[in-house]
């Protein structure tokens, strides 16, 4: 699918610290893209750059091959990491107000507000002040504010942090629905297992530079092969530590996760395991996203 959001050569420095260092990547339409990186990698600065909220030394943000301007941003939705709503304003008033700022008429904003508050299970809190809501409900209200104008691009900075499982499920459902409707979704998160389930592709940055990007499938099937082996009664995987070309990456409740060099035959590993004890589990597995992330940012 063609990329419709293009980040090209962004450079941003803060008092001598380089936050973005020639950062470039693209986001296709109709996809949920995970935007990953360690703390301080430059994720929030990049997201703010999309909305013109930070000054850039160099680089360009394009939407459908055009430099992003105020008219485009009216059709974008943004949920910043540090949530931003008026604490003493009623939920519905706030969501409608942001809809109007995005160009909706009064009636359209009111209708969209009702629809999204109902969709996010906030209809019965519509007249409550934001400050009276729980953290999870404030998060939902913030998402409603980002969605009220049915944006073409949705940029969400840590939208899942601090939510209970029900809240996470509700937001994931909405994001999948929006992507299916053609919305381009870029979200950052440190919950890599959720990103792995939710996102079709990821962009990983570190120190303001792109370190890895691609579909989750591609990234997980690339890199060193992995084996998960379990022996009855074995707790520490000592049998595998002396195998040439094999690295123990993880021990988990009796299962040992192994990285194989290119020239290692998995059958040889199976033979070594069998000679060490009864093998109860032997599986060639994909890289997990957390492994992709750690290896990319090591």
């Amino acid at each position: 699918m063609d990329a419709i959001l293009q980040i090209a050569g962004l450079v941003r420095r803060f008092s001598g610290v380089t936050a973005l260092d020639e950062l470039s990547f693209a986001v296709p339409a109709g996809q949920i893209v995970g935007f990953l990186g360690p703390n301080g990698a430059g994720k929030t600065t990049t997201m703010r750059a999309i909305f013109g909220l930070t000054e850039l030394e160099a680089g360009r943000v394009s939407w459908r091959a055009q430099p992003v301007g105020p008219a485009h941003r009216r059709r974008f939705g943004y949920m910043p990491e540090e949530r931003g709503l008026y604490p003493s304003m009623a939920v519905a008033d706030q969501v409608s107000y942001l809809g109007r700022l995005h160009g909706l008429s009064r009636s359209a904003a009111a209708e969209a507000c009702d629809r999204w508050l109902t969709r996010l299970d906030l209809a019965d809190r519509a007249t409550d002040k934001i400050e009276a809501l729980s953290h999870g409900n404030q998060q939902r209200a913030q998402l409603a504010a980002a969605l009220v104008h049915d944006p073409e691009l949705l940029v969400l900075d840590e939208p899942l942090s601090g939510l209970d499982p029900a809240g996470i499920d509700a937001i994931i459902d909405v994001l999948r629905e929006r992507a299916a409707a053609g919305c381009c979704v870029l979200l950052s998160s440190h919950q890599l297992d959720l990103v792995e389930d939710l996102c079709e592709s990821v962009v990983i940055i570190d120190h303001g530079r792109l370190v890895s990007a691609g579909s989750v499938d591609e990234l997980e099937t690339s890199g060193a092969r992995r084996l998960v082996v379990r022996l009855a009664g074995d707790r520490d995987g000592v049998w595998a530590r002396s195998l040439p070309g094999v690295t123990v990456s993880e021990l988990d409740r009796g299962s040992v996760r192994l990285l194989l060099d290119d020239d290692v035959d998995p059958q040889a590993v199976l033979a070594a395991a069998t000679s060490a004890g009864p093998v109860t589990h032997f599986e060639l597995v994909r890289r997990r996203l957390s492994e992709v992330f750690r290896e990319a940012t090591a």
Partner: protein
Amino acid sequence: MRTTAAQPAVKLGTAGLVAGREIRERIRGRAFRIATLIGVVAIIAAIVIPTFTSGSKHVQRIGVIGVLSPSVRAQISGAARSAGTPFQFVVRPNRSVADEDLLAGSLDLAVVDSATVLLHKSIGTGDTSTTARLARTVAQILGTDRAAYAAGLTPAQVGALAAARPVPIRGLAPASNHKSVGGAPITGLILVFILLSQYLGWTLVGVMQEKANRVVEVLLATVRPLQLLVGKLLGIGAVVFAQAAVFTAAALIAAEIAGSNVLRSASPAAILSQLVWLVLGYAFYSWLYAAAGSMAERQDQVQTLAIPLTIPMVFGYVVAISAAGSGQASTLLRVLAYLPPTAPFAAPILVALSAMTWWQFVLSIAISVGSTLAVARLAAAVYRRAILRTGRRVRFRELFRSEKVAAHNG
């Protein structure tokens, strides 16, 4: 999914949307409602209570030295009754006793040998106090009597009576060069100071809070900084003038119903001047307070930033209210009337003292408008650069170091 850009009409109305939210949220606030209610009650009380308490009028004591004919006494009694002024004649043996009583305040005025009306202090042309009015009436009656006596009461001399001139009114002490501005301009000045202090505080804290709770990041993702700033200032400004209008209406209605003459001392020009300067004062200071608010994230930071902005306001107010009290248009007051930070307080008092010509008034306004435009330009630049800088208080010198390029929103 919508694929077209927002309509131009929406773009033009963005500042209006921001202003509308500001107005709605401010008016809904309990603090605003309580402040407005207290203000209205205080204004009504200030107008009505003096009217009611004036029912127990002071009895004017008129000292009589020498002869005062029954016909003159009768004329004075009639005139005082028709004016609703209670009085009594008090005989004094000689001039020196009368002087002492006048100085001590036990006499309000004295008639000396039917030829002179004596007061503690001379009265100015603008003095409308009861004693002043009574003194003028007594003087007129004495003058008429003298004219009638001199004319021998023939019909031909009746005409001379109509043209009788009051006898001289002399004071024991020289008249001071006092020119009272009356209660209305002083009340107006206090009101302008209170309104500006309150609403500029709203602007300062409102901008700071939007920055502190990060709402501004969501807003500026779709609204330009200038649109947000202008909308905010217009919204708060509209609330200021709505509240000022409510106070003015309450004052006028209360004065009309209670029959008070408190507001009669204010000329239409003085009232108009006060309103014009309320607008100009808010316009000038609101930009500065908004810029200061954008540089802070905490209450203690805004207080530090507000101090240098508050000093000229307080200085202008103190000088103006002192001038209003003394009735003196000092050189300092005249200078301050041309300086935009102090003109909103000094200029209306100069107008109330009739010490400002129309071209001086226009010149002062022109200077203020020009300065406001320059200040707005600077403040908008500060706001644009500072509002998204979080983590610590922004220093002024940091804001203009280097202008970055590319994806900036402004």
